[in-house]
Protein backbone atom coordinates (compact mmCIF):
# COMPACT_ATOMS: atom_id res chain seq x y z
CA UNK A 1 0.00 0.00 0.00
CA UNK A 2 2.67 2.47 -1.00
CA UNK A 3 1.32 5.83 -2.22
CA UNK A 4 2.26 6.47 -5.86
CA UNK A 5 4.62 9.29 -5.00
CA UNK A 6 6.76 6.98 -2.88
CA UNK A 7 7.15 4.32 -5.54
CA UNK A 8 10.07 4.52 -7.88
CA UNK A 9 9.49 4.31 -11.60
CA UNK A 10 10.15 0.59 -11.81
CA UNK A 11 7.69 -0.11 -9.03
CA UNK A 12 4.97 2.03 -10.50
CA UNK A 13 5.31 0.23 -13.83
CA UNK A 14 5.59 -3.18 -12.13
CA UNK A 15 8.87 -4.12 -13.75
CA UNK A 16 12.30 -5.08 -12.52
CA UNK A 17 15.17 -2.59 -12.75
CA UNK A 18 16.68 -4.89 -15.36
CA UNK A 19 13.74 -4.56 -17.75
CA UNK A 20 14.52 -4.06 -21.42
CA UNK A 21 13.00 -1.19 -23.41
CA UNK A 22 10.63 -3.72 -24.93
CA UNK A 23 9.39 -4.72 -21.49
CA UNK A 24 9.08 -1.08 -20.44
CA UNK A 25 6.91 -0.31 -23.45
CA UNK A 26 4.71 -3.32 -22.71
CA UNK A 27 4.42 -2.43 -19.04
CA UNK A 28 3.33 1.07 -19.93
CA UNK A 29 0.71 -0.25 -22.32
CA UNK A 30 -0.55 -2.58 -19.60
CA UNK A 31 -0.60 0.24 -17.05
CA UNK A 32 -2.70 2.38 -19.36
CA UNK A 33 -5.05 -0.54 -19.75
CA UNK A 34 -5.35 -0.68 -15.97
CA UNK A 35 -5.34 2.96 -14.96
CA UNK A 36 -6.53 4.81 -18.06
CA UNK A 37 -9.44 7.20 -17.69
CA UNK A 38 -11.88 4.88 -19.41
CA UNK A 39 -10.43 1.66 -18.07
CA UNK A 40 -13.06 -0.64 -16.57
CA UNK A 41 -10.40 -2.37 -14.47
CA UNK A 42 -9.82 0.44 -12.00
CA UNK A 43 -13.27 1.98 -12.33
CA UNK A 44 -14.18 3.64 -9.00
CA UNK A 45 -11.01 2.28 -7.40
CA UNK A 46 -9.28 5.67 -7.51
CA UNK A 47 -10.75 9.11 -7.09
CA UNK A 48 -10.55 11.49 -10.04
CA UNK A 49 -7.67 13.32 -8.46
CA UNK A 50 -5.77 10.14 -7.59
CA UNK A 51 -6.13 8.82 -11.11
CA UNK A 52 -4.86 12.03 -12.65
CA UNK A 53 -1.80 11.97 -10.42
CA UNK A 54 -1.16 8.32 -11.07
CA UNK A 55 -1.39 8.80 -14.83
CA UNK A 56 0.99 11.75 -14.81
CA UNK A 57 3.53 9.78 -12.76
CA UNK A 58 3.17 6.83 -15.11
CA UNK A 59 3.85 9.02 -18.09
CA UNK A 60 6.91 10.53 -16.46
CA UNK A 61 8.14 7.07 -15.53
CA UNK A 62 7.72 5.80 -19.08
CA UNK A 63 9.38 8.80 -20.72
CA UNK A 64 12.30 8.63 -18.31
CA UNK A 65 12.94 4.93 -18.65
CA UNK A 66 12.43 4.61 -22.38
CA UNK A 67 15.16 7.16 -23.12
CA UNK A 68 18.67 5.75 -22.77
CA UNK A 69 20.28 8.83 -21.31
CA UNK A 70 17.58 9.85 -18.85
CA UNK A 71 17.28 6.25 -17.73
CA UNK A 72 21.01 6.09 -17.04
CA UNK A 73 20.78 9.23 -14.91
CA UNK A 74 17.73 7.97 -13.07
CA UNK A 75 19.33 4.58 -12.41
CA UNK A 76 22.39 6.31 -11.04
CA UNK A 77 20.24 8.29 -8.65
CA UNK A 78 18.46 5.16 -7.40
CA UNK A 79 21.75 3.34 -6.91
CA UNK A 80 23.18 6.29 -4.98
CA UNK A 81 20.14 6.31 -2.72
CA UNK A 82 20.63 2.61 -2.17
CA UNK A 83 17.17 1.76 -3.45
CA UNK A 84 18.32 -0.64 -6.11
CA UNK A 85 21.39 -2.74 -6.61
CA UNK A 86 23.80 -1.79 -9.34
CA UNK A 87 24.03 -5.39 -10.47
CA UNK A 88 20.31 -5.64 -11.11
CA UNK A 89 20.38 -2.80 -13.63
CA UNK A 90 19.71 -3.33 -17.27
CA UNK A 91 22.82 -3.65 -19.36
CA UNK A 92 22.46 -3.51 -23.06
CA UNK A 93 24.46 -6.26 -24.67
CA UNK A 94 23.69 -5.05 -28.12
CA UNK A 95 24.79 -7.34 -30.86
CA UNK A 96 25.61 -6.32 -34.39
CA UNK A 97 23.78 -8.23 -37.06
CA UNK A 98 26.01 -10.96 -38.47
CA UNK A 99 26.23 -11.01 -42.27
CA UNK A 100 25.38 -14.56 -43.29
CA UNK A 101 27.69 -14.41 -46.30
CA UNK A 102 30.69 -13.94 -44.02
CA UNK A 103 30.22 -17.31 -42.46
CA UNK A 104 30.99 -19.01 -45.77
CA UNK A 105 34.30 -17.31 -46.28
CA UNK A 106 37.57 -18.41 -44.78
CA UNK A 107 38.78 -16.36 -41.89
CA UNK A 108 42.13 -15.26 -43.35
CA UNK A 109 40.59 -13.84 -46.45
CA UNK A 110 42.41 -10.91 -47.96
CA UNK A 111 40.32 -7.89 -47.54
CA UNK A 112 39.43 -5.71 -50.47
CA UNK A 113 41.42 -2.88 -48.98
CA UNK A 114 44.63 -4.85 -49.46
CA UNK A 115 45.08 -3.33 -52.92
CA UNK A 116 46.20 0.15 -51.95
CA UNK A 117 45.47 3.12 -54.14
CA UNK A 118 49.15 4.06 -54.09
CA UNK A 119 49.74 1.10 -56.44
CA UNK A 120 48.72 3.25 -59.37
CA UNK A 121 51.36 5.89 -58.79
CA UNK A 122 53.87 3.14 -58.00
CA UNK A 123 53.07 1.48 -61.29
CA UNK A 124 53.65 4.70 -63.15
CA UNK A 125 57.10 5.18 -61.62
CA UNK A 126 58.27 1.57 -61.73
CA UNK A 127 61.10 1.20 -64.34
CA UNK A 128 60.27 -2.43 -65.23
CA UNK A 129 56.68 -1.52 -65.95
CA UNK A 130 57.65 1.54 -67.90
CA UNK A 131 59.85 -0.57 -70.10
CA UNK A 132 57.08 -3.06 -70.74
CA UNK A 133 54.55 -0.34 -71.41
CA UNK A 134 56.81 1.11 -74.08
CA UNK A 135 56.10 -1.95 -76.27
CA UNK A 136 53.61 -1.73 -79.07
CA UNK A 137 52.05 -5.12 -78.44
CA UNK A 138 51.52 -6.66 -75.00
CA UNK A 139 51.27 -10.36 -74.11
CA UNK A 140 49.97 -12.21 -71.10
CA UNK A 141 53.54 -12.70 -70.04
CA UNK A 142 53.99 -8.91 -69.93
CA UNK A 143 50.91 -8.47 -67.75
CA UNK A 144 52.20 -11.10 -65.36
CA UNK A 145 55.60 -9.41 -65.14
CA UNK A 146 54.01 -6.06 -64.40
CA UNK A 147 51.81 -7.60 -61.68
CA UNK A 148 54.74 -9.37 -60.08
CA UNK A 149 56.81 -6.18 -60.20
CA UNK A 150 54.14 -4.62 -57.97
CA UNK A 151 54.04 -7.67 -55.70
CA UNK A 152 50.31 -8.30 -56.11
CA UNK A 153 49.11 -11.90 -56.08
CA UNK A 154 46.61 -13.30 -58.54
CA UNK A 155 44.35 -14.35 -55.62
CA UNK A 156 44.35 -10.77 -54.48
CA UNK A 157 43.10 -9.54 -57.80
CA UNK A 158 40.54 -12.31 -58.05
CA UNK A 159 39.21 -11.28 -54.65
CA UNK A 160 39.03 -7.66 -55.65
CA UNK A 161 37.60 -8.05 -59.14
CA UNK A 162 35.41 -11.10 -58.34
CA UNK A 163 36.82 -12.76 -61.49
CA UNK A 164 37.56 -16.47 -61.19
CA UNK A 165 41.26 -17.13 -60.74
CA UNK A 166 41.21 -19.61 -63.64
CA UNK A 167 40.19 -16.88 -66.06
CA UNK A 168 42.92 -14.57 -64.78
CA UNK A 169 45.43 -17.37 -65.30
CA UNK A 170 44.24 -17.90 -68.84
CA UNK A 171 44.65 -14.21 -69.56
CA UNK A 172 48.23 -14.21 -68.32
CA UNK A 173 49.00 -17.43 -70.25
CA UNK A 174 47.33 -16.22 -73.45
CA UNK A 175 44.99 -19.24 -73.56
CA UNK A 176 42.07 -17.48 -75.19
CA UNK A 177 40.11 -20.69 -75.81
CA UNK A 178 39.50 -21.10 -72.09
CA UNK A 179 37.74 -17.75 -71.89
CA UNK A 180 34.02 -17.41 -72.58
CA UNK A 181 34.16 -14.71 -75.31
CA UNK A 182 36.08 -11.76 -76.66
CA UNK A 183 33.64 -9.44 -75.01
CA UNK A 184 34.27 -11.12 -71.66
CA UNK A 185 37.99 -10.98 -72.16
CA UNK A 186 37.83 -7.22 -72.67
CA UNK A 187 35.78 -6.70 -69.58
CA UNK A 188 38.00 -9.00 -67.49
CA UNK A 189 41.07 -7.17 -68.71
CA UNK A 190 39.56 -3.84 -67.76
CA UNK A 191 38.83 -4.98 -64.21
CA UNK A 192 42.26 -6.61 -63.93
CA UNK A 193 44.17 -3.57 -65.12
CA UNK A 194 42.06 -1.09 -63.15
CA UNK A 195 43.65 -2.54 -60.02
CA UNK A 196 46.96 -0.85 -60.73
CA UNK A 197 46.98 1.12 -63.98
CA UNK A 198 45.51 4.46 -64.76
CA UNK A 199 45.53 4.05 -68.53
CA UNK A 200 43.90 0.63 -68.83
CA UNK A 201 42.22 1.30 -72.23
CA UNK A 202 45.46 1.64 -74.18
CA UNK A 203 46.92 -1.47 -72.56
CA UNK A 204 43.82 -3.44 -73.46
CA UNK A 205 44.01 -2.28 -77.05
CA UNK A 206 47.64 -3.33 -77.32
CA UNK A 207 46.84 -6.75 -75.77
CA UNK A 208 43.84 -7.32 -77.97
CA UNK A 209 45.76 -6.48 -81.14
CA UNK A 210 47.03 -10.06 -81.30
CA UNK A 211 43.51 -11.50 -81.36
CA UNK A 212 41.82 -8.88 -83.49
CA UNK A 213 44.78 -9.41 -85.81
Amino acid sequence: MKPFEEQHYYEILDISPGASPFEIRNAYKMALQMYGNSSPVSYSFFSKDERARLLSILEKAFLTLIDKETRLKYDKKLVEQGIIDEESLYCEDSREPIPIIDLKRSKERISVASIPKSLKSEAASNPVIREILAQDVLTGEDLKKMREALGVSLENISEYTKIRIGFLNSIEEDQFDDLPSKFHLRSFLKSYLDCFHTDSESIIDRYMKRIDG
Partner: protein
Amino acid sequence: MTHIWPIGGGKGGSGKSFLVGNLGVWLAEQGKRTLMVDVDLGAANLHTIIGIPYPKKSISDFINKKVKTLEETVIETQTANLFLISGAKNSLDVANLPYAQKLKVLRAIKKLSYDFILLDIGAGTSFNIIDFFMISDLGVFVTTPEPTSIENIYRLIRAVYFRKVRKMIPQRDFKKLVETALTRYEDSSIDYLSALVLLMKEQYPQKGKALERSVQNMNFHLVLNQLRKKDNPRLGMLMCKIVNKYLGIKVEFLGNISYDDRVHDAVCEKDSFIYRYPYTQASLDIRNFCNNILSISNLKSNVRNDALTEQRL
Protein backbone atom coordinates in the same frame (compact mmCIF):
# COMPACT_ATOMS: atom_id res chain seq x y z
CA MET B 1 -11.54 -30.74 7.76
CA THR B 2 -14.47 -28.54 6.76
CA HIS B 3 -13.84 -25.95 4.10
CA ILE B 4 -16.12 -22.95 4.38
CA TRP B 5 -16.38 -20.98 1.17
CA PRO B 6 -18.37 -17.76 1.31
CA ILE B 7 -19.39 -16.65 -2.17
CA GLY B 8 -20.53 -13.08 -2.60
CA GLY B 9 -19.95 -10.01 -4.63
CA GLY B 10 -21.58 -6.76 -3.74
CA LYS B 11 -23.96 -6.46 -6.63
CA GLY B 12 -27.12 -8.42 -7.24
CA GLY B 13 -27.57 -10.42 -10.40
CA SER B 14 -23.91 -11.21 -10.92
CA GLY B 15 -24.53 -14.93 -10.60
CA LYS B 16 -23.61 -15.74 -7.01
CA SER B 17 -26.47 -18.16 -6.27
CA PHE B 18 -26.14 -19.66 -9.73
CA LEU B 19 -22.46 -20.43 -9.13
CA VAL B 20 -23.08 -21.76 -5.62
CA GLY B 21 -25.76 -24.08 -7.00
CA ASN B 22 -23.53 -25.45 -9.75
CA LEU B 23 -20.46 -25.71 -7.55
CA GLY B 24 -22.49 -27.59 -4.95
CA VAL B 25 -23.78 -30.11 -7.46
CA TRP B 26 -20.32 -30.62 -8.91
CA LEU B 27 -18.64 -31.11 -5.53
CA ALA B 28 -21.34 -33.56 -4.48
CA GLU B 29 -20.75 -35.53 -7.69
CA GLN B 30 -17.05 -35.74 -6.76
CA GLY B 31 -18.14 -37.50 -3.57
CA LYS B 32 -17.72 -34.54 -1.25
CA ARG B 33 -20.38 -34.09 1.41
CA THR B 34 -21.45 -30.56 0.59
CA LEU B 35 -23.79 -28.19 2.37
CA MET B 36 -25.06 -25.01 0.80
CA VAL B 37 -26.30 -22.32 3.15
CA ASP B 38 -28.43 -19.51 1.86
CA VAL B 39 -27.49 -16.53 3.99
CA ASP B 40 -28.89 -14.05 1.51
CA LEU B 41 -31.42 -13.52 4.24
CA GLY B 42 -33.84 -11.00 2.81
CA ALA B 43 -33.80 -12.33 -0.75
CA ALA B 44 -33.10 -16.02 -0.65
CA ASN B 45 -33.41 -18.08 -3.81
CA LEU B 46 -30.76 -20.75 -3.74
CA HIS B 47 -33.47 -23.37 -3.21
CA THR B 48 -35.09 -22.32 -6.49
CA ILE B 49 -31.82 -22.64 -8.40
CA ILE B 50 -31.38 -26.26 -7.36
CA GLY B 51 -35.01 -27.15 -7.92
CA ILE B 52 -36.61 -27.24 -4.48
CA PRO B 53 -39.47 -24.74 -4.80
CA TYR B 54 -41.04 -25.52 -1.41
CA PRO B 55 -38.37 -26.31 1.16
CA LYS B 56 -39.89 -27.65 4.38
CA LYS B 57 -37.39 -26.07 6.73
CA SER B 58 -35.32 -22.94 6.66
CA ILE B 59 -32.65 -21.07 8.58
CA SER B 60 -35.39 -18.99 10.20
CA ASP B 61 -36.49 -22.00 12.20
CA PHE B 62 -33.12 -21.89 13.91
CA ILE B 63 -33.07 -18.11 14.35
CA ASN B 64 -36.60 -18.13 15.80
CA LYS B 65 -35.72 -21.08 18.06
CA LYS B 66 -38.25 -23.43 16.51
CA VAL B 67 -35.47 -25.98 16.40
CA LYS B 68 -32.48 -26.22 18.72
CA THR B 69 -29.58 -26.87 16.35
CA LEU B 70 -28.79 -25.60 12.89
CA GLU B 71 -28.26 -29.20 11.79
CA GLU B 72 -32.00 -29.77 12.12
CA THR B 73 -32.76 -27.26 9.37
CA VAL B 74 -30.68 -29.15 6.80
CA ILE B 75 -32.69 -30.67 3.96
CA GLU B 76 -31.59 -33.23 1.41
CA THR B 77 -31.60 -32.44 -2.29
CA GLN B 78 -32.16 -34.64 -5.35
CA THR B 79 -28.38 -35.02 -5.63
CA ALA B 80 -26.65 -37.45 -3.31
CA ASN B 81 -24.17 -35.84 -0.90
CA LEU B 82 -25.69 -32.41 -1.46
CA PHE B 83 -27.54 -30.68 1.36
CA LEU B 84 -29.17 -27.32 1.76
CA ILE B 85 -30.07 -24.90 4.49
CA SER B 86 -32.64 -22.80 2.77
CA GLY B 87 -33.44 -19.18 3.34
CA ALA B 88 -36.97 -19.50 1.99
CA LYS B 89 -40.02 -18.96 4.17
CA ASN B 90 -38.01 -16.52 6.25
CA SER B 91 -39.92 -13.98 8.25
CA LEU B 92 -39.97 -10.62 6.52
CA ASP B 93 -37.68 -8.86 8.97
CA VAL B 94 -35.03 -11.57 8.98
CA ALA B 95 -32.67 -9.47 6.86
CA ASN B 96 -32.18 -7.12 9.78
CA LEU B 97 -30.58 -9.73 11.97
CA PRO B 98 -29.58 -8.43 15.42
CA TYR B 99 -25.92 -8.82 16.31
CA ALA B 100 -26.40 -11.55 18.92
CA GLN B 101 -28.45 -13.72 16.59
CA LYS B 102 -25.98 -13.27 13.78
CA LEU B 103 -23.18 -14.45 16.06
CA LYS B 104 -25.29 -17.46 16.98
CA VAL B 105 -25.75 -18.36 13.32
CA LEU B 106 -22.06 -17.85 12.52
CA ARG B 107 -20.99 -20.06 15.42
CA ALA B 108 -23.50 -22.72 14.47
CA ILE B 109 -22.25 -22.77 10.86
CA LYS B 110 -18.67 -23.18 12.02
CA LYS B 111 -19.66 -26.18 14.12
CA LEU B 112 -21.27 -28.08 11.23
CA SER B 113 -19.28 -31.00 9.93
CA TYR B 114 -19.24 -31.38 6.15
CA ASP B 115 -16.47 -31.56 3.57
CA PHE B 116 -17.60 -28.30 2.06
CA ILE B 117 -19.89 -25.56 3.27
CA LEU B 118 -20.81 -23.01 0.62
CA LEU B 119 -22.33 -19.75 1.82
CA ASP B 120 -24.47 -17.90 -0.65
CA ILE B 121 -24.05 -14.31 0.48
CA GLY B 122 -26.40 -11.60 -0.66
CA ALA B 123 -25.70 -8.29 -2.34
CA GLY B 124 -24.72 -5.18 -0.46
CA THR B 125 -22.00 -4.21 1.98
CA SER B 126 -23.84 -4.08 5.30
CA PHE B 127 -22.14 -5.43 8.41
CA ASN B 128 -24.30 -8.56 8.33
CA ILE B 129 -23.08 -9.43 4.89
CA ILE B 130 -19.46 -8.67 5.63
CA ASP B 131 -19.47 -10.73 8.81
CA PHE B 132 -20.73 -13.73 6.92
CA PHE B 133 -17.97 -13.16 4.45
CA MET B 134 -15.34 -13.07 7.17
CA ILE B 135 -16.41 -16.41 8.62
CA SER B 136 -13.34 -18.04 7.05
CA ASP B 137 -10.08 -16.96 5.46
CA LEU B 138 -11.33 -18.16 2.12
CA GLY B 139 -13.84 -16.44 -0.07
CA VAL B 140 -14.93 -15.89 -3.64
CA PHE B 141 -16.02 -12.60 -5.13
CA VAL B 142 -18.22 -12.84 -8.18
CA THR B 143 -18.31 -9.95 -10.62
CA THR B 144 -19.44 -9.27 -14.14
CA PRO B 145 -17.37 -7.11 -16.52
CA GLU B 146 -19.71 -4.16 -16.02
CA PRO B 147 -18.52 -1.07 -14.15
CA THR B 148 -21.49 -1.24 -11.78
CA SER B 149 -20.43 -4.66 -10.63
CA ILE B 150 -16.73 -3.82 -10.51
CA GLU B 151 -17.49 -0.76 -8.42
CA ASN B 152 -19.34 -2.85 -5.87
CA ILE B 153 -16.57 -5.43 -5.69
CA TYR B 154 -14.02 -2.79 -4.78
CA ARG B 155 -16.43 -1.37 -2.28
CA LEU B 156 -16.97 -4.79 -0.73
CA ILE B 157 -13.26 -5.55 -0.48
CA ARG B 158 -12.65 -2.19 1.16
CA ALA B 159 -15.58 -2.76 3.50
CA VAL B 160 -14.12 -6.11 4.58
CA TYR B 161 -10.81 -4.42 5.29
CA PHE B 162 -12.53 -1.62 7.15
CA ARG B 163 -14.45 -4.12 9.23
CA LYS B 164 -11.19 -5.79 10.22
CA VAL B 165 -9.84 -2.48 11.46
CA ARG B 166 -13.10 -1.65 13.17
CA LYS B 167 -13.22 -4.96 15.02
CA MET B 168 -9.78 -4.53 16.52
CA ILE B 169 -10.39 -1.21 18.20
CA PRO B 170 -13.00 -0.42 20.89
CA GLN B 171 -15.79 1.91 19.85
CA ARG B 172 -14.64 5.05 21.67
CA ASP B 173 -11.02 4.78 20.49
CA PHE B 174 -12.22 4.11 17.00
CA LYS B 175 -14.20 7.34 16.90
CA LYS B 176 -11.11 9.25 17.98
CA LEU B 177 -9.01 7.46 15.39
CA VAL B 178 -11.41 8.39 12.62
CA GLU B 179 -11.47 12.02 13.71
CA THR B 180 -7.67 12.24 13.79
CA ALA B 181 -7.41 10.52 10.45
CA LEU B 182 -9.89 12.91 8.89
CA THR B 183 -8.20 16.06 10.19
CA ARG B 184 -4.64 14.94 9.64
CA TYR B 185 -5.04 13.55 6.16
CA GLU B 186 -7.69 15.96 4.98
CA ASP B 187 -5.53 17.64 2.34
CA SER B 188 -3.32 14.64 1.83
CA SER B 189 -3.50 12.54 -1.26
CA ILE B 190 -4.14 9.17 0.36
CA ASP B 191 -7.60 7.72 0.63
CA TYR B 192 -9.60 7.33 3.82
CA LEU B 193 -8.95 3.64 4.37
CA SER B 194 -5.18 3.89 3.91
CA ALA B 195 -5.12 6.89 6.23
CA LEU B 196 -6.96 4.91 8.87
CA VAL B 197 -4.60 1.95 8.57
CA LEU B 198 -1.53 4.20 8.68
CA LEU B 199 -2.77 5.95 11.77
CA MET B 200 -3.67 2.71 13.47
CA LYS B 201 -0.21 1.30 12.86
CA GLU B 202 1.24 4.44 14.35
CA GLN B 203 -0.97 4.70 17.45
CA TYR B 204 -1.41 1.02 18.20
CA PRO B 205 1.71 -0.69 16.83
CA GLN B 206 0.78 -4.10 18.22
CA LYS B 207 -2.71 -4.02 16.82
CA GLY B 208 -1.28 -2.75 13.56
CA LYS B 209 0.91 -5.81 13.33
CA ALA B 210 -2.00 -8.08 14.17
CA LEU B 211 -4.03 -6.40 11.43
CA GLU B 212 -1.23 -6.91 8.95
CA ARG B 213 -1.06 -10.58 9.83
CA SER B 214 -4.77 -11.12 9.55
CA VAL B 215 -4.90 -9.28 6.23
CA GLN B 216 -2.09 -11.45 4.92
CA ASN B 217 -3.97 -14.54 6.01
CA MET B 218 -7.04 -13.62 4.01
CA ASN B 219 -7.16 -15.60 0.84
CA PHE B 220 -9.79 -14.22 -1.45
CA HIS B 221 -10.55 -15.19 -5.01
CA LEU B 222 -12.21 -13.49 -7.89
CA VAL B 223 -14.39 -14.92 -10.64
CA LEU B 224 -15.42 -12.92 -13.65
CA ASN B 225 -18.87 -14.09 -14.66
CA GLN B 226 -20.85 -13.38 -17.85
CA LEU B 227 -17.82 -12.57 -19.97
CA ARG B 228 -19.03 -11.75 -23.47
CA LYS B 229 -16.85 -12.17 -26.51
CA LYS B 230 -15.89 -8.54 -26.88
CA ASP B 231 -14.94 -8.11 -23.22
CA ASN B 232 -11.33 -8.03 -22.19
CA PRO B 233 -10.48 -11.50 -20.85
CA ARG B 234 -7.66 -10.07 -18.76
CA LEU B 235 -9.98 -7.78 -16.83
CA GLY B 236 -10.24 -10.03 -13.77
CA MET B 237 -6.51 -10.67 -13.59
CA LEU B 238 -5.80 -6.93 -13.74
CA MET B 239 -8.39 -6.22 -11.03
CA CYS B 240 -6.62 -8.63 -8.71
CA LYS B 241 -3.35 -6.91 -9.48
CA ILE B 242 -4.70 -3.52 -8.48
CA VAL B 243 -6.17 -4.82 -5.23
CA ASN B 244 -2.92 -6.56 -4.34
CA LYS B 245 -0.86 -3.51 -5.10
CA TYR B 246 -2.94 -0.73 -3.65
CA LEU B 247 -4.84 -2.41 -0.82
CA GLY B 248 -2.33 -5.08 0.11
CA ILE B 249 -5.04 -7.74 0.08
CA LYS B 250 -4.31 -10.99 -1.66
CA VAL B 251 -6.99 -11.74 -4.23
CA GLU B 252 -6.32 -14.51 -6.70
CA PHE B 253 -8.02 -14.73 -10.06
CA LEU B 254 -9.93 -17.97 -10.55
CA GLY B 255 -10.95 -17.51 -14.17
CA ASN B 256 -13.59 -16.22 -16.53
CA ILE B 257 -16.99 -17.74 -17.07
CA SER B 258 -18.44 -17.11 -20.50
CA TYR B 259 -21.82 -15.53 -20.96
CA ASP B 260 -24.46 -17.95 -22.15
CA ASP B 261 -28.12 -17.28 -22.91
CA ARG B 262 -28.96 -20.83 -21.91
CA VAL B 263 -28.19 -20.02 -18.29
CA HIS B 264 -31.53 -18.26 -18.32
CA ASP B 265 -33.22 -21.41 -19.60
CA ALA B 266 -31.60 -23.56 -16.93
CA VAL B 267 -32.67 -21.17 -14.17
CA CYS B 268 -36.22 -21.07 -15.53
CA GLU B 269 -36.27 -24.87 -15.58
CA LYS B 270 -34.85 -24.86 -12.03
CA ASP B 271 -32.18 -27.25 -13.25
CA SER B 272 -28.42 -27.39 -12.83
CA PHE B 273 -26.77 -25.72 -15.81
CA ILE B 274 -23.62 -27.85 -15.99
CA TYR B 275 -25.68 -31.02 -16.33
CA ARG B 276 -28.32 -29.60 -18.61
CA TYR B 277 -25.83 -28.03 -21.01
CA PRO B 278 -22.56 -29.86 -20.32
CA TYR B 279 -20.89 -29.12 -23.66
CA THR B 280 -21.10 -25.33 -23.66
CA GLN B 281 -18.16 -23.02 -23.08
CA ALA B 282 -19.85 -21.70 -19.95
CA SER B 283 -20.12 -25.23 -18.53
CA LEU B 284 -16.48 -25.85 -19.27
CA ASP B 285 -15.56 -22.62 -17.50
CA ILE B 286 -17.71 -23.50 -14.49
CA ARG B 287 -16.13 -26.93 -14.20
CA ASN B 288 -12.71 -25.29 -14.35
CA PHE B 289 -13.77 -22.97 -11.58
CA CYS B 290 -15.02 -25.92 -9.49
CA ASN B 291 -11.76 -27.77 -10.05
CA ASN B 292 -9.82 -24.72 -8.87
CA ILE B 293 -11.91 -24.47 -5.72
CA LEU B 294 -11.30 -28.14 -5.00
CA SER B 295 -7.53 -27.96 -5.53
CA ILE B 296 -7.20 -24.82 -3.40
CA SER B 297 -9.11 -26.56 -0.61
CA ASN B 298 -6.94 -29.67 -0.89
CA LEU B 299 -3.86 -27.49 -0.70
CA LYS B 300 -5.21 -25.83 2.43
CA SER B 301 -5.86 -29.12 4.20
CA ASN B 302 -2.42 -30.40 3.21
CA VAL B 303 -0.80 -27.33 4.69
CA ARG B 304 -2.88 -27.76 7.83
CA ASN B 305 -2.03 -31.44 8.12
CA ASP B 306 1.64 -30.63 7.76
CA ALA B 307 1.34 -28.04 10.50
CA LEU B 308 -0.44 -30.52 12.76
CA THR B 309 2.20 -33.21 12.28
CA GLU B 310 4.88 -30.66 12.99
CA GLN B 311 3.16 -29.73 16.21
CA ARG B 312 2.95 -33.34 17.26
CA LEU B 313 6.63 -33.85 16.54
